[in-house]
């Protein structure tokens, strides 16, 4: 297999080293509160109309069981509701279920009641049997991407017409949060039976809208579903998602009025949009993070033993790297204060955040040099970092490179295309890699797979019984406070061993034309359009 070696020009590095040394005091970033929605439309909305949303990435199959694209959630939201959703505070709230689950037998049994008035868009009734069938499909379909999210489920059964009971072989608290994501989307059992895997090309769910058609790489069209249980509060005739992968182009299209809503606006464009007439913006802190993963393995990608570099064997070198980063200054400079620095996989302000999880390692370049000297590391210490070739990631990496040179690190950046970087991660073909995680509602989804021994996303190869125990406990405890405390302990340990060094947290920035209302976006980043409407021109 060919290995791509892209070398960053020394010129760029020199330029940044000269220009980006944050020695002088930086202005504190402006306080940017979350703006999660335009508010529910009340009076003065126009009934009807077609809303066009520019989507930054194309969803894969529109099948909740096999989909692995996050953008599937955007398109499914209006046409395939979930058992649970999250609200503006990131708390889990009922959607197709009517209450949070009742937990019994120390977390081994979960029971939840369902809406009685919901109907699938093909006219089939929504009931416990449909939910049981879908959850079973998630657990048994051979190409399922949901299996690991649902945990050690033993049985799923319909207790009566509108009550579902799930039993586990071991307690698994993240289950409810999984049902607030793709695992909680329920398709009509009749449609699944008739179409099989093809149902992803024509999904049938419960929602304000129903699927009309899809033109590959171009658009996905939905129309109002008259069978929806809350149809009185649906205003648009149609929603058309248009795929526009380039951030500048999405911004320009909102300004020109060709699209009404656009997701994932770049911090580079947001200020221009905020100043533009006729455009409003929504912003919400993401549950995900961007981080630097260090390869600790003592084998090469083919499994042969190698002589690992000092950074893999001596935690002091990694500690030095972590405290040589002025996360706040870097994030503010590179992203104009739109993104926030991160020190852990748990987003601040969420139900699981604690002082421990919010703690940022203090910036101390002198101490970093001392640590490097103690570890017997050569100064400058060379480190090769693979970084995604997206604009944002590259700009951050270059600023980081300049800053780390102050503390005795010489970073060589290797910009690598997204799929290639995922592949390098899997195979352990990196010294350090800078990549993000989109984030999950439950902290389990942001920590367990990255830190426990031999877990699927444990790219660093880190392993310790203490971490395994903490993260297993976090998934089994049932009270939020207990769980938050456990994850706090885990974060403290993470910041000692630094196998993954957390850098910053993005904000989901959404632009919309100001004649649109009823749009909301919460911490999962999904733009909710079910109750969107155009404002009545006469009243604006």
């Amino acid at each position: 297999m060919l290995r791509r070696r892209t070398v960053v020009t020394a010129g760029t590095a020199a330029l940044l080293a000269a220009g980006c040394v944050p020695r002088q005091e930086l202005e504190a970033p402006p306080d940017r509160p979350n703006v999660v929605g335009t508010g529910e439309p009340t009076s003065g909305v126009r009934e009807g109309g077609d809303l066009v949303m520019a989507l930054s990435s194309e969803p894969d199959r529109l099948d909740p069981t096999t989909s692995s694209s996050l953008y599937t959630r955007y398109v499914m939201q209006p046409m395939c509701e979930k058992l649970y959703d999250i609200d503006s505070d990131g708390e889990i709230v009922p959607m197709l279920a009517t209450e949070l689950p009742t937990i019994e037998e120390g977390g081994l049994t979960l029971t939840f009641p369902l809406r009685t008035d919901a109907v699938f868009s093909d006219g089939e009734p929504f009931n416990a049997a449909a939910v049981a069938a879908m959850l079973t499909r998630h657990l048994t379909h051979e190409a399922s991407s949901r299996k690991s999210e649902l945990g050690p489920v033993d049985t799923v059964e319909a207790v009566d017409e509108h009550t579902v009971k799930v039993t586990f072989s071991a307690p698994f608290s993240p289950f409810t949060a999984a049902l607030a994501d793709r695992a909680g989307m329920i398709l009509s059992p009749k449609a699944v039976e008739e179409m099989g895997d093809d149902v992803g090309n024509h999904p049938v769910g419960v929602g304000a809208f129903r699927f009309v058609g899809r033109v590959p790489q171009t658009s996905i069209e939905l129309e109002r579903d008259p069978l929806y249980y809350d149809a009185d509060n649906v205003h648009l005739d149609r929603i058309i998602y248009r795929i526009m992968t380039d951030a500048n182009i999405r911004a320009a299209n909102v300004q020109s009025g060709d699209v009404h809503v656009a997701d994932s606006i770049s911090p580079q464009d947001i200020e221009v949009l905020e100043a533009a007439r006729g455009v409003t913006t929504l912003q919400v802190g993401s549950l995900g993070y961007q981080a630097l993963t260090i390869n600790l393995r003592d084998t090469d990608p083919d499994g042969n033993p190698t002589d690992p570099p000092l950074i893999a064997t001596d935690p002091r070198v990694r500690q030095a790297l972590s405290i040589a980063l002025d996360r706040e200054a870097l994030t503010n400079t590179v992203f104009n204060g739109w993104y926030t620095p991160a020190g852990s996989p748990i987003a601040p302000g969420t139900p699981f955040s604690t002082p421990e999880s919010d703690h940022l390692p203090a910036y101390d370049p002198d101490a970093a040099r001392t640590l490097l000297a103690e570890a017997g590391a050569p100064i400058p210490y060379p480190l090769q970092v693979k970084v995604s070739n997206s604009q944002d990631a590259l700009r951050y990496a270059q600023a980081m490179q300049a800053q780390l040179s102050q503390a005795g690190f010489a970073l060589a950046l290797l910009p690598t295309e997204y799929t290639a970087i995922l592949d390098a991660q899997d195979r352990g073909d990196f010294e350090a890699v800078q990549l993000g995680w989109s984030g999950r509602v439950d902290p389990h989804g942001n920590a367990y797979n990255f830190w426990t021994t031999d877990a699927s996303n444990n790219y660093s190869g880190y392993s310790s019984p203490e971490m395994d125990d903490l993260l297993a406990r976090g998934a089994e405890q049932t009270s939020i406070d207990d769980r938050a405390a456990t994850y706090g302990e885990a974060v403290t340990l993470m910041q000692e061993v630094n196998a993954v060094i957390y850098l910053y947290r993005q904000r989901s920035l959404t632009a919309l034309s100001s004649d649109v209302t009823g749009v909301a976006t919460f911490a999962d980043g999904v733009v909710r359009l079910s109750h969107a409407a155009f404002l009545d021109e006469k009243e604006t």
Partner: protein
Amino acid sequence: MGRFLAVRAVESLITLLISAAVIFLGVRALPGDPARAMAGEEATPEQLAAIRADLGLDQPLLVQFLAFLRNTVTFDLGTSTRTGQEITQMLAAAIPVTLQLSVYAIIVAIIIGITFGMYAERRRGKPDELLANAGVLLGLSVPNFWLGLLGILILAVMLGIVPASGYVPFFESPVRSIYHLTLPALVLGTGLAAVIARQTRASLIETMGTDYVRTARATGIAPRRVLFRYGLRNSLIVLVTIVGLQLGGLISGAVVTERIFALPGLGRMTLDAVFSRDYPVIQAVVLVVTFSYVLINFLVDVLYSVVNPRIRTGGARA
């Protein structure tokens, strides 16, 4: 003529076969495979293995290649690994877009290019020739992506006279279709227009200096008629070649243009397929593009031999 055609046809076939092999191996040399791209950030090793087995990626390369050849010959292009849609359908939707965009861009390019070229020739030695030449140089040097962004910013956002994106099929509404494609066609056609302008100018200068043009002038034919009838007409053979060659270039230029204007054409389809390592789609698109290159070259050769019979014997000897 028959032998000439046969030789060219066999050559074309060999070209196609070689490019099929190159593209088959080329996409597999990229780091990461469709399974890796499909599973995204949250993949488990079991999931990756399941997807690979499902797509037949766990088979030996030779087996995969033979299957690919067999399917190609039987016109079975398979399904996209990413969206599960039929590639034949995807192509059927994408080709008209790129074709329409290319034809529109060529028309724009020919109109602008010939006008500029003739103007530059007529004003030879005068200051405004410099202006025309500078315009041509600018057209050649400005990259598509920048021109596209600038076009959107000025014509769509600031002036609001053309839409910034969107595509309407020609047969749904010809007027709206052309309206939506105007800006992309301008952007895509600019480079070609510059090439045509230079060629028109150069070849007009040459033609207008020939004896028969002088004779025509001497017989008192109106200068305009000399320019169009004798000058431009005889310069056209060069233009046919240029347009033929550049048509292929337009398809690659469409990759950038289609991405900027969110047009659902072949270029966009290729780019997305490469990013998601959608092997069957990349292979199919490259085959179709190679096929059209080969076909266009073949047709240009045939057209030559019609325009100039001497080429026929030359071709047959080779």
